Each structure stands twice: as C-alpha cells, then as structure tokens.
C-alpha cells in the first residue's frame, strides 16, 4: 500500500445536502409602495421583500434555523476537502477522520430528526392558516403567492450521503501507457495532497483564531461564555483528528495537547471567571497556542509531493485534466 493510499484510508468524505424554503419573497408592488411612501427619487432602486407565509413567516424561520443548524454543526466539526485557494469558496464535501465517522453520522441524524420534528410541528398550523386566510394577511401585495403547503413541505430535505473513501488513483486498474499513467498518478497525488493540506490548514487557522479569541476574552472580556471552552476542545479535537491521520506534525499535536491540558480541561467557565490562577494559565496557553499555530500556518507546507516519477511521455494538459476530472 503506498503512502497516498494509507493516508486516504484514514479519512472519509461525507456528502450532505440541505434544502429549505425562503419565505421572504421580493414584491414589486411593495417596492413601488415603499418608494412612493418614502418619496424616493425615481432612479433610486428600492427592493422590498414580503413574508410569503403571512403571519406565520417568523415561525417558518424558526424551522429554517433548525435546518441551518445541521450545516452549522457539520461545518464546525468537520474540515473542508477542496483544492480551493485562499479566499475562494470552500463549500463541498467535508473530510472526517475514519474513527469519528460514526459519531458525526449519529449527531447529524439527531439534528436531522430535530429539524424535521420542527417542520412536522409547523405544517399543520400552516395548512390551517393557508386554508383559512390564504393571502388575506398580505394586503395589497398581489404579486406574492402564499405557497401550497405540500409544495412548501417538499422543499425541505436533508440528505446525508453514505460516507465515501477519499479518491485514490490506482494505476494498476487502468490499461494506460506507463508514462501517461505515472503522469496521471502524479497529478492526482498532488491534488490530493493539496486538498489534505488545505484541510490541515483550515484546522490550524480555525484553532489559531479561536485561541486568539480566548486570549482576548479572558484578558479583557466582560462576559465570558462556556462556548469559549467548548470550542477550544472542539478545535483541539479537529487539529488532532486531522494531523494524526495525515502528517503527524508533532508541533500541531503538542499545541492540541496544550489546549486540552490548560483550556479544555477546565470543566466550567465559572472556574476562569473566579479563579485568577486558572484564568492566567489559560491565557498563557491560548497565547502560546495562537502564536505557535500562526507560525505553523505561515510555514512551508508539509504536503508531501512524494509521487510517482514524472513521465517522459508528452501529453496535453487538457487531456490530463479531463481524465482527472
């Protein structure tokens, strides 16, 4: 088994897709009325949105927040698997250490059940409201329709796909000329290394930013919240989960240990509120961790380009790119 295969065996990808309805709809009628009422000059754009579910719009937003919570938790507890560069969109599949997959799936199932419970509780109210009041609460807004309850319910979905292994190129399975196969393997390897390094970088930067927040909040924050400690533990876990299956970077593992020992081990935020000793120790640990992670984040990447030897076969970039994609 090569290095790429062994690293890939340590992680899985979990695809997830979430659908929900946006109850706020643009209304030209309301926009015109608002522009007129506010005496807005003709060339100033005014765009007004109206709650299409009438007086139950706020209730649907509560349901939406339950659906959003699934993605929020998922993004907080997993890492991106993408070769997007700095500043580019990093949505898409998320990477999870193999040993954490059951835990992540269980939590997602729990959150999914919560979300659909909220929707199921809402829908009877909406069906009754829709049949009794349909549009009546929308006043003169004639260009926004109240959605049919079945259509509305159909827009809600949470699909948690089966965990997938990381894509690994197996040169033996393709009957390609040796040189071309080696080139494809190298490109594939480079891309995987970039994606894994991106995940490590995301874990480091997330932990670094949170440690900076912890240091600042504990130094001069007025209201300390338990999430400071809980998120410290979460970031330490993400760091460890990412690094232990990838490059075993001792520097990052030591920082994860430091966070767990000095911050994550504090069971209750009250202990830092009222105990100057623990607070000072946590501040020092957060400062050290933030500084160390910042240095590692800016240092050269440990993504290992140890790949199959470059081929002497000349092949067009577009052909290789097509094959890879």
């Amino acid at each position, binding site marked *: 088994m090569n*290095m790429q295969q*062994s690293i890939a065996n340590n992680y899985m990808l979990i695809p997830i897709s979430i659908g929900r309805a946006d109850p706020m709809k643009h209304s030209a009628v309301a926009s015109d009325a608002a522009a007129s009422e506010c005496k807005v000059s003709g060339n100033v754009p005014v765009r007004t949105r109206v709650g299409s579910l009438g007086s139950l719009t706020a209730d649907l937003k509560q349901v939406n927040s339950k659906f959003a919570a699934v993605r929020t938790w998922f993004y907080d507890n997993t890492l991106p698997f993408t070769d997007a560069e700095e500043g580019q969109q990093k949505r898409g599949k998320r990477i999870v250490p193999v040993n954490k997959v059951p835990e992540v799936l269980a939590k997602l199932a729990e959150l999914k059940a919560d979300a659909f419970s909220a929707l199921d509780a809402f829908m009877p109210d909406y069906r009754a409201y829709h049949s009794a009041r349909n549009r009546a609460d929308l006043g003169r807004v004639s260009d926004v329709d109240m959605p049919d309850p079945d259509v509305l319910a159909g827009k809600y979905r949470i699909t948690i796909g089966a965990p997938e292994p990381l894509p690994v190129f197996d040169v033996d399975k393709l009957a390609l000329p040796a040189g071309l196969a080696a080139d494809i393997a190298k490109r594939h390897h480079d891309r995987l290394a970039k994606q894994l390094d991106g995940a490590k970088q995301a874990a480091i930067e997330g932990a670094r930013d949170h440690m900076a927040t912890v240091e600042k909040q504990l130094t001069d924050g007025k209201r300390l919240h338990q999430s400071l400690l809980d998120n410290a533990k979460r970031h330490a876990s993400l760091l460890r989960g990412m690094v*232990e299956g*990838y*490059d*075993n*970077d*001792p*520097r*990052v*593992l*030591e*920082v994860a240990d*430091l966070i767990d020992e000095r911050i994550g081990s504090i069971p209750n935020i009250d202990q830092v509120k009222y105990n*100057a*000793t*623990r607070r*000072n*120790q946590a501040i*020092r640990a957060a*400062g*050290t961790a933030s*500084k*160390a992670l910042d*240095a*590692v984040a*800016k*240092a*050269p*990447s*440990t993504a*290992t380009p*140890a790949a199959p030897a470059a081929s002497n076969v000349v092949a067009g970039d577009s052909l290789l790119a097509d094959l890879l994609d």
Partner: protein
Amino acid sequence: MAHVKTNIAELDQMARTALASQYRKPFALIGMVGIAKTQWIKSRYRELYAEHLGISTDQVGFIQTRVANRDAAEIAGVALPIKNDDGSVGTQFTKPPLVAELWAAHDAGFTHGINLIDEFGQAGGDVQKVFADMFDPDERTLAGWAIPDGWIIAWTGNRTADKSGANRVLSHIMGRCRVFELEFDAKAWADWAADNGVNPLAIDCAMAYADDGFFADCVPTEDGPFCTPRSLTHAAGDLTAFTDSGDFDGVTLPSYMETLIASSIGARAAGMLSRHIAMADQVPTAAEIFADPAGAKVPDSTGYQLLAANRAINGAADADTGEAALAYIIRLRPDLQVSLGSKLLRASARHGWVLTSNVAVAFIQKFHDLLPLAQDAGMGV
C-alpha cells in the same frame, strides 16, 4: 479535586500579578520533597516582593516558621489563670510568639516582610485551624492578634503521597490561599544551580537525563535515598570535594565515591552520574552544537549521540538554538533522528518558539509515518 500544577517559570509570572492584587492571599506551594519550594519562597518570592514594593531585597524581612512539630496552643498562645479586679478567677491568653516575632521585626525596621510557614502540610488539623484567620486576606489575625500590615504569608508542604507525614490541607485553608502543586522544572533548577556554584558535571548530567528518570518524580516505594534537586545539590558538593582533590583522574569515579553519592541520590542516579562523567569529554556540549551544528562531533556510540542531542534539546531556548539542535539531530542515527526530532519539535511548540524552517518541514515530511511510534514509545516531550 487536583491541585493546580505549575512550575517555577510560571510562579515568577503569577507572583507579580498576585502581589499587585488587592487580595493578599498567601502563596502556597505543595509538592514532592526537595524540589526547591522553600528555596523559591526564600529567594525569588522575596525578590519579587521587594521589586513590587520598589525596595531592595534586604529591606524585606523574612521569618521562617516550622510548624510540623508544634501544638496548636504553642501557635495560638497559652491560657493562663488570672484574678479579675472583682477578685474572680478568669482566663487570659498569652500573645502568640509568632505575632510577637513579626511585630519585633516590624519595630526593628522591617515594615515589610514574608513569613514562611514551612512544612505546613505536616502540621496537624488543629494547627491548621489556628492559621485559618491569619491566611484569610480579610482577617490577617492570629488568635485575634493582628499581624503587621506589610507582612505577607506563604506556606509550603508535601503531598500526602510523599510519605513525609503530610496531611490533607483543610478545605477552608485551601479557599483562603493560592495553592499550587509545584512541578519540577529541570531547566529552572539548572539555571539556579549554575548561579549557585553547584558542580557543573552534576548539572550537565541532570539536564542530559532529566527526561530519562534521573530525578525521581515521586517518592519510591522502597526505602532508600532518591534523587531530588536538593539531594543532588548535596551530592554535587561531595563530587566537588572529590574532583578538587588529587584523587580524581578527570574521567573515573572510584566505587567509594559512587557509593557516597548514592547515599544522597540513590544508586541509579549515582550510576548515571558516574557514567556521564566517564563519557563527558567524548560528547559535544550544547554550546558547541549551537555554534556549529553541521560540524560538531557526532559520537559513534548511540548512548553518546543520545546524550549530545539531549544536551542540545534541553539547552535550546529559542528558534535559533532549536534549529541548530534539529540540524544536529538529523546527523544522528535514523532511529534517534525520529525520536529526538519529534521531541524537539514538540518542545518548540510548547515553549512558543515553534520550529518552521524548511529543515523542520522536511523532517516531518520524511518521518511522518514514524512519528507516532516515537510518541507511543514515550520518547516525546
């Protein structure tokens, strides 16, 4: 609940803040025997208090009170029968001798000072109770007698597991003090030892083998001497007496000297020290490695390579010396490279001067699959 653990370096930082706080809670250090708890209070805490006050250290009074072998009545004052003005018999308590001693020092010109209650953990519950009000920052009285305003309190004690007769400290005492469990910091001890004339061979050995169990981290189950900073300091005195004599050939400790040293630090540590002295001149020092990591001598023997690298790792204090240590480590045997490089990289992150050079990155790339083995084998920091 476990005590808050700390080390000498952290104590220095915390003490400054604590001294500036409006609550003058006593500093309390508990920990294994012989790890310089009392010494820190006597010297460093006194210096820091002087620094806080803006006066010189010798202007800060210091009174050390050992309470392990005292009764509560000796501390609180003794009840004496008296005849009242109306002829009835009453009771009067004598002024506690410690209060008298503190005020005498105060009146002699030491308006500020530190009263160290030593071996407090060994005191019985009744004695501990007597001190409760004196430790309370809002009370600061002993048996009802106020102590001088400029005098602050500190106490030391062993853990109950240290087989020194220490008791559990009463919970209401814990709430009135800043109690820390002092963990041994070999580097801080080495700095202190170098400044205080401790034999350099003993210091060098302690630094080289600090992570290999040279110092005892708890009291051994079997009776007999064991190595602590204090006992090593005593053994180093014996060593100096021998090395200064004409009997020392520069390399070998005779068996009677090893036995003499073992009576202070135990046979295992004495053996390590003896072997260390025998090999000392074959191994480059940390300073030599830092000065020329690519050219410093790499001994043939694995043990000597380990010693040289440990010297460098323990001596590294910033990114420059850390990088030099890593550059030296990658010249050693491959198995040592993995374990020692991992140890150094972890230490660098822990101390805030994390190594990020191309050499460090290349090291992680090359050995990424072996690094967990080094950690699992306990060879990390």
